[in-house]
């Protein structure tokens, strides 16, 4: 082991600057939208602030600085400004590019001047850069950028520590272990990480911060600011301390401005509208108090079976509830905003029992069950008939309409959804409508 100086560095990445806030189903008030839009940039400023406040020796940025391959110049300027602030504080930065900002794109305006203290890794393997203190190398960063968005090569396998360096850090945007729900770019295994000889792996790509490996320490930095309702909880970066004995300790620093918070509220115990509003407010207030001083975007989902199901299923009711809840929350800073109220409730009936009754409602439930079963039917005709029947029902919007086909491509239900979630909700809706008539009878 080489003699080692103690030092500390900040591990961040997946900044996704310029990333629009996704998944908003209701237009946010202007002040809320302004905060949301600026949240990723503000989080980057906080990362820079944390680095300077903790007087780190350097910062490593593990790819996906920008959300899109053609980021705005404003985003680039703000990223550059952050790097410049770090450089002004004597903190060098090391950057690799990920799938969102590969080097074949237009992620980096060539004319934008970056400080000299910034090292951007290229696409070739074997590149490394030293971190110097008083002219003496205290660590060496090994990194490799994406030449294009979709990289299927195992970059980690070609990255090896320099035995002459006192401390080697691997900086890579990668999917370790083929994590589901993420593009399997620059895939590698934990064995690849182990065999590399690195003393620390600074990883990017997975937005949930966490440890991948204990020895050598390998961490996903996560995203400094959650961008959509799927990125819940605290987000930030890692402050890594390396002592003279090669011991590494990592501390998570929250840098997010806004947190996404889902609330599931069961209606089963709620007697009426008033109780629903009251309980919703209670849950929202609890969430706000636990938000660690962050602004909060709430997605409220009503679930369960109960007498209120018919009420919440009424057209416009949930929007009305959202407006009522937001009226009380309006104007707060940090803000709490109910982004949507969604209905996951079910009627207070036993569908299995109801399905057995030989009437129209029973027929309807049996029809739905048949459609659901068709997904797994061994009869290809039956399968195709139902698939066609369901697909044709939504085709006017998603297939036959040119704009729908073009712009709702990602939003259109696939075959799985048509016999899954969509079918479930259609069943609930149909039951609501049919039983409304029955109740009236």
């Amino acid at each position: 082991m080489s003699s080692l100086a103690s030092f500390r560095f900040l591990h961040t990445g997946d900044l996704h600057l310029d990333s629009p806030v996704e998944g908003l189903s209701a237009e946010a008030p202007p002040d809320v939208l302004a905060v949301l839009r600026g949240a990723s940039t503000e989080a980057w400023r906080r990362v820079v602030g944390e680095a300077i406040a903790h007087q780190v020796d350097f910062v490593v940025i593990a790819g996906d600085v920008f959300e899109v391959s053609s980021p705005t110049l404003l985003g680039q300027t703000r990223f550059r400004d952050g790097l410049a602030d770090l450089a002004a504080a004597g903190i060098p930065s090391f950057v690799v590019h990920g799938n969102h900002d590969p080097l074949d794109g237009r992620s980096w305006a060539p004319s934008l001047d970056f400080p000299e203290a910034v090292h951007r890794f290229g696409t070739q393997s074997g590149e490394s850069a030293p971190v110097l203190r008083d002219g003496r190398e205290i660590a060496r960063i090994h990194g490799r950028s994406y030449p294009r968005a979709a990289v299927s090569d195992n970059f980690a396998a070609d990255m090896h520590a320099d035995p002459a360096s006192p401390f080697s850090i691997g900086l890579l945007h990668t999917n370790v272990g083929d994590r589901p729900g993420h593009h399997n770019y620059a895939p590698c295994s934990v064995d690849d990480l182990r065999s590399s000889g690195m003393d620390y792996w600074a990883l990017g790509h997975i937005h949930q911060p966490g440890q991948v490996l204990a020895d050598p320490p390998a961490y996903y930095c996560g995203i400094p600011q959650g961008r959509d309702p799927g990125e819940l909880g605290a987000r930030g970066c890692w402050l890594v301390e390396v002592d003279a004995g090669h011991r590494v300790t990592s501390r998570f620093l929250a840098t997010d401005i806004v947190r996404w918070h889902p609330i599931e509220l069961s209606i089963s115990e709620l007697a009426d509208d008033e109780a629903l509003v009251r309980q919703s407010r209670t849950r929202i207030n609890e969430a706000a108090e636990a938000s660690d001083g962050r602004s909060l975007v709430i997605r409220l989902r009503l679930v369960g079976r109960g007498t209120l199901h018919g009420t919440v299923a009424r057209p416009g009711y949930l929007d009305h509830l959202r407006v009522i809840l937001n009226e009380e929350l309006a104007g707060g800073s940090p803000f709490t905003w109910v982004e949507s109220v969604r209905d996951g409730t079910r009627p207070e009936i036993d569908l299995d029992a109801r399905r057995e009754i030989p009437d129209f409602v029973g027929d309807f439930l049996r029809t739905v069950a048949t459609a659901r079963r068709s997904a797994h039917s061994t009869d290809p005709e039956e399968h195709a008939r139902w698939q066609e029947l369901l697909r044709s029902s939504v085709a006017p919007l998603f297939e036959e309409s040119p704009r729908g086909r073009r712009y709702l491509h990602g939003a259109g239900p696939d075959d799985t959804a048509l016999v899954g979630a969509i079918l479930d909700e259609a069943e609930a809706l149909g039951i609501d409508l049919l039983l409304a008539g029955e109740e009236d009878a």
Partner: protein
Amino acid sequence: MRIDRIELDGFGRFHDAHWSLGAGLTVILGDNEAGKTTFLNGLRALLFGFEATREGRTWYPAFAGGRRGGRLVLTTAAGERWVVERHGERGGGGALAVRAPNGNQGGQETLDRLLRGADRDLFTNIFAFGLGELQDLHTLSTTGVRGRIYGAGAGLGGTSAVDLERDLRGELRETFVPTGTKPPLNTLLVRIERLRVEIAELASQPQEYEVAHRERDALEARSMALRDEVRGARERVARLGHLRKAAPILGELGEIERELGAGDPTLDLLPHDVAVLLDRRLAELESARLALGTIDAELDDARRERDVVRVDHAVLAVSDDIAAARDASLARSVARDRRRDLSAVEARHAASVAEQRSKVGGWEEARLLALDDSIPSLQATRDAEERLARARADASGADGRWRAAAEGLAAREREVVAPSTIGDIDARRAVLRELDVFRGREDAMRSVAMGSPAKAIDARTAVAVVALFATAGIVVGLSVGEALGGVVAGAVLGVVLVVIVAVLTRRPSGAHSPDLSGMRRELLERAGLTPTATDAEVVTLGDELASARARSNLAREQAASVELRRDEVRRLERSRDDAGDALRAAEEAWATWLLERGMAVGLAPTAAREMLGAAGIARGAVKERERVVALMALADHEEAEHAARTDEIFAGLGVGSVGGDEERAAGVLALVDRLERARVAERRTRELEVRITRLDERRTSGTEEVAARRAAVERHLAANGSLTADVLRQRDLAAIERRDLRVRSRELRAELAGVAGSVEAIDDLAAEARRIDAAAVEAELGEASADVDRIEAEQAEARARIGELAARIRQLEAAEELGTKRQELAIAEGTAAALARDWAVRAVALRLLEETRQRYERERQPDVVRAAETHFSRFTGGRYARIVAPPGDVSVRVETDGGEGRVTEELSRGTAEQLYLALRFGLIEEFARHAEPLPVVMDDIFVNFDADRASRAAGTIRELATRHQVIYFTCHARTAELLDPEGTRTVALA
């Protein structure tokens, strides 16, 4: 359900018309225009509302009168009685009221539920039809009719699957339409498209940024090159400008240098201040000369004055005596004033003594001065005064008190009442009290004798008392004996008690009263009244005696008081006598004191004290007078001495004798003045001597100074090569001129250095100027200046463009528009996705409902068709055995019993109508299987039936009437007979 009663308040030809209908079949027979169709439409109107006004014609207006509309009384299968009332003047629902059996009132929804989803179309086509509807097979196949028939059995109450599907389609259309832009999802998709275009345009900003950067870099490089070019051109312009500027300077400089070369170079050695120094040396010499002249003049003046001044030495020799005489003379003047004051004081004291003597009555001075006015004496007068005053006050007070007491006593003694009558009064008052007692007894006796109501017992009271006592006796008796015995004993005891009471309360008789008048007379006499005195007189006497008794008590108290006052008067009399003795003793002691001092007896202490005061004042005045007299003698003596000494001085100085004090004093003053003048002359002489000595000394040094200054001037001239001051001044002027030339030369050189750029460059510049003529310089300068202007213009243009590019670069770097648009797109896409998902759910739900309904219909239709087959076979006498009606297919085929198939178009009109009737009956029965059976109304549908088939159809209708209420309108008596052979259910419509 059946219609029990129809009431038409006003509808077409009917006004205030009503019909009661029974269950089962009712045949309404009426001629043409009897109102059958009006009746049928009235029924439809009451159930489903009024048809719209068409071409300005109201549908069945109430032209016969009344309010358009009426009411239906309905009874359900469950026996519930409902009333449906509807009125309206125009088309539409009008005013509907549905009264439930429990009295609640509802509207259209209630009626819909009551009719189990049957609407006007269904009712008109299936349940209440005429020949026109019967002939239209299509009405049987419309989705609405079919859906409602099957929906009635769907368990959906008043809501049919068809309604749900229609609502869902409406909701889908409200969100999205395949062609259009207004629904929200369509709007969003258009917006997404527009945003994407805008974003694509904005996404080109980085390229613009790069282009701007490249252009700016190129322009900056060009700008740098231009800067070099302009620098060279400017240098050329500058150099040529220098040459142009240097030419006149160089010319002047040459002339100066030539002039300097021709002049006396030794002048350059003359100090700059040589003339100043010369003037200063000459001024110093002149100043020394002037000072010496002044000294000589002052010396002459001093010597002349010294020779003039004379000193009076004789006076100076006796200056001390004169000074003493002067002081003594001044003292004597004061002493004389003092002597005069003393004389006045002596006279004043003598007058004071005389005044005091007159105060005491002209006593001799010695007698007055002999009076002792010491403090004890004065105190003795004050003591005597006080004692006398006190003794007099005591005597006067004691006398006053005695007199007042004596007067008070005399007054009291006059008021005293003689107490001698008190005993008599008391005796007479005792007699009056006896008399009062006596009168009381007399009244008592008189009241008994007269039966006073207050004392007598009346008969009722007596009976009550007897009864009471008897009862008491019985109670007592019972308490001591047996029952009967007790009663007897009680009665006896009561009687005894009554007797006792009677005895005790019996009235005193007149035979037993004493002789009261004698006793009264005696008492009256003893009281001092006449024997016949009345009670009033007795009372008056009593009051008088009481008053006299009070007065007697008062007199007794007054006598005691007079005695006490008498003792006091005596005591005060003694006090008065004692005070008089004390006063006399004090007066005697005071007289003795006066006699002892030779003062008149009877003199009051105050007067005596004043005499003592006069004596004291006189004594003081005498003493002071004597002191003043002594002082006056001393002053006279000193005056004499002073005169002697003064005369001696005068004699010594030869001044003649003087007469009085004033002349002597004036002579002394004259001597003093003479002495002062002698002293001034003596002092001035000494001062002049000193001054002359000093001026002599100053003259010597002044002479030396003049010699030294002259030598300095001569040295200065010699040192600067001049024999005279004028020569030196001329040389100095010449030297100054040379120096000015040199200064100008330096200025020109400096100017040249400025033009050439440095001192070192002057020579080169001068050399170049010598080589090039002025015209060539001007021409070249014009060219170079034009170059500069051109390059600078290009440079400014480049700078402006660089500025524009920098601004654009900054703008691009700070541009939020792309981010904003992307955010807007994200929100639009998110919202569109949510809407699309909701749309998809509704679309799938719709499809599922459609699928369910179609399947439901498919499964139910065989029952309908089977029932229709039965009816159709019967109508046709078995000719047609089968009906084939594919679900959803408008066309219906029939097959004969031989298997021959025919489509409806191949059937005769009557057969086709029979087929449609059969199908309607099938549907009616299918509806009734799941819902409330509705009344069936038919309007002369047998028109095209032959007699057999009409008869068979009538039989079928009769059977149907066993399960449904059937109302059949006809204008044919034969048809009525077919349907109601007994004629019991036929109603004539008049």
